[in-house]
């Protein structure tokens, strides 16, 4: 056993209850928090409790949830909305999906609590169409809650009405940004608009709207049940509670982990994650998805919380945590994220639409060994301009993977530019596959796996790779049992 203690808050019920049966949820004190709010607390009490708990938004920005609710509650209107952001666009992260599939009622309950506290009667969940199981379970949960009167009119015999509908995303990363999300729910192209006005002021259909992430909501019922002072004892000074991470990449144990804020990266990657696969060397860990950065060895003992990650040059993001080993080229990783950004940029503002494309092209040149020292400087300058001048959070953070790799792996950039070498052996244009004749026993295994027939040679004699035909897929190297194939 490791010394790390698991505290399950957002994942409290996941895997424990049958998510398609409301009675299971109720048996684990489900909807008790909603009952407590409606029958024993005023809306102001609820907001105060959430504020005191120190809960911060889990969708990326880390904005204090209680404060957000308070702002929405103070904006008066005939109709207000509670929105759950279940767009989960960070590629490589699946925390929200797991919560929705494993414990849908917790999100419904929290949205109703939020509705009660800000004075809204309608809730909307914006969920990606790519999550059919989560959609199905949410539908079942909403139906069941309506049947027993936990959604609908006069909940718990009070005057409070609240109902929830689903809205579907259609595959656009920028729709995770709250203003785009709202436009998308209105049936429009999901393009962001300038804030202010914030959704809490003018959101869905121009009405005050509170937008929170799935995991943020999932933490709410337990805070109401156990109290703010229970929750705010967990975590660090400015980041309370736990955070769920989707640990993936080159670690031995991949999957979801929920740890108290303040746990170190080392504990997550090496104790919970069981270290790097195949005994390779740890190189970097990427947090915050396309908006985040790559952290290295020297950051491993940093306690994870919102502010520390930003200080280290990355960010919390929604909880994706991708581990990389010595075989990953950091220039390629930056290029990978930029490729993503270029594809997902909505195109509304030019720094993001054009600037990111130029960044991508520069990175491409570098990975082909055609980069210059000026290009490195250009990368940095352009990144800063894009950050400063883009309209929405997408463009404002998209250069982070470039800047953090420039900061932490400058040598690797230099190797590409000056020596035309990719130290990790990932940039295909900079390498060739060779067979070391002395090691080759002529087993023909490589020739058989080569998808393009680039390897020739007689049985029991050293083989040869035709570098003209070779597509550098690496299949031969993986298959060779005699370490006879190398990349140069």
């Amino acid at each position: 056993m490791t010394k790390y203690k698991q505290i399950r808050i957002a994942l409290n019920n996941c895997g424990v209850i049958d998510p398609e049966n409301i009675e299971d949820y109720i048996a684990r004190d489900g909807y008790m928090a909603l009952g407590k709010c409606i029958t024993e607390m005023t809306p102001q009490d609820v907001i105060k409790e959430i504020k005191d708990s120190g809960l911060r938004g889990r969708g990326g920005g880390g904005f204090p949830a209680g404060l957000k609710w308070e702002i929405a509650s103070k904006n008066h209107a005939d109709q207000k909305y509670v929105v759950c952001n279940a767009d989960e666009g960070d590629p490589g992260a699946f925390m929200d999906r797991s919560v929705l599939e494993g414990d849908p009622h917790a999100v419904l309950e929290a949205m109703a609590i939020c509705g009660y506290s800000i004075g809204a009667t309608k809730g909307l969940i914006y969920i990606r169409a790519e999550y059919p199981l989560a959609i199905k379970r949410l539908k079942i949960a909403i139906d069941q809650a309506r049947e027993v009167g936990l959604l609908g009119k006069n909940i718990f015999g009070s005057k409070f009405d609240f109902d929830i509908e689903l809205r579907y995303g259609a595959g656009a990363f920028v729709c995770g940004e709250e203003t785009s999300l709202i436009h998308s729910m209105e049936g429009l192209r999901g393009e962001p608009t300038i804030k202010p006005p914030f959704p809490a002021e003018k959101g869905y259909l121009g009405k005050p709207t509170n937008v929170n992430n799935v995991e943020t909501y999932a933490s709410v019922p337990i805070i109401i049940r156990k109290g703010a002072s229970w929750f705010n004892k967990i975590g660090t000074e400015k980041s309370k509670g736990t955070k769920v991470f989707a640990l993936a990449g080159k670690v031995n144990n991949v999957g979801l982990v929920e740890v108290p804020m303040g746990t170190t990266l080392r504990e997550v990657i090496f104790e919970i994650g069981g270290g790097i696969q195949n005994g390779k060397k740890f190189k970097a860990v990427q947090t915050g998805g396309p908006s985040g950065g790559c952290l290295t060895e020297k950051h491993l003992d940093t306690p994870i919380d919102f502010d520390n990650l930003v200080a280290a040059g990355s960010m919390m993001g929604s909880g994706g945590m991708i581990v990389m080993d010595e075989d990953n080229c950091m220039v390629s990783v930056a290029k990978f994220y930029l490729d993503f950004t270029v594809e997902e940029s909505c195109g509304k503002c030019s720094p993001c639409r054009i600037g990111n494309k130029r960044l991508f092209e520069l990175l491409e040149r570098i990975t082909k060994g055609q980069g210059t020292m000026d290009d490195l400087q250009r990368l940095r300058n352009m990144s800063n301009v894009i950050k400063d001048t883009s309209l929405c959070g997408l463009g404002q953070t998209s250069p982070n993977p470039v800047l953090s790799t420039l900061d932490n792996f400058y040598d690797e950039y230099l190797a590409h530019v000056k020596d035309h070498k990719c130290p990790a052996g990932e940039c295909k244009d900079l390498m060739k596959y060779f067979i070391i004749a002395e090691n080759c026993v002529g087993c023909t295994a490589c020739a058989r796996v080569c998808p393009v027939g680039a390897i020739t040679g007689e049985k029991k004699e050293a083989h040869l790779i035709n570098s003209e035909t070779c597509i550098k897929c690496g299949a031969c190297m993986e298959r060779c049992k005699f370490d006879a194939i190398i990349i140069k």
Partner: protein
Amino acid sequence: MSRIKVKVKEKDLNTIKEICKSFNNEQGELINVLHKTQEHFGYLPAEIQEVVAQELEMSVAKVYGVVTFYSFFTMKPKGKFPISICTGTACYVRGAENVLAEFKRQLNIEVGETTEDGKFSLSCLRCVGACGLAPVVLVGEKTYGRVSPEGVKDILAEYNDK
């Protein structure tokens, strides 16, 4: 907007009208209407978009703008067995690019295209939430995990005589 020449079959026309009606012909429901319509027809060619625009009383340009904004909507028919390769980060760091390259090579098509016989189409998607199994490939609804370039041939072979 009765000027629009509609090339859609009578039966299909009614289907689209019914879908729109089930959402009260509301403009705000455009995305839901498109989801349902694509579910039925498999894709959203220009003619269908014209009918939707007519029914919701909005310009075709607006509908087209929405269809092309969201990657989930497609204007080209997919193959009988649509192949989707996850190029999310977890899959990427475990070599999804090589797998994609091998699919392209074997099928001789690019991403977004369909083979001539209409059998396979190729697309990329970002994270299906099965990152533990990276790299991940979907063929229709079936998920393949830990796919290597060498495994591509076997996957395709499964569908060869179907």
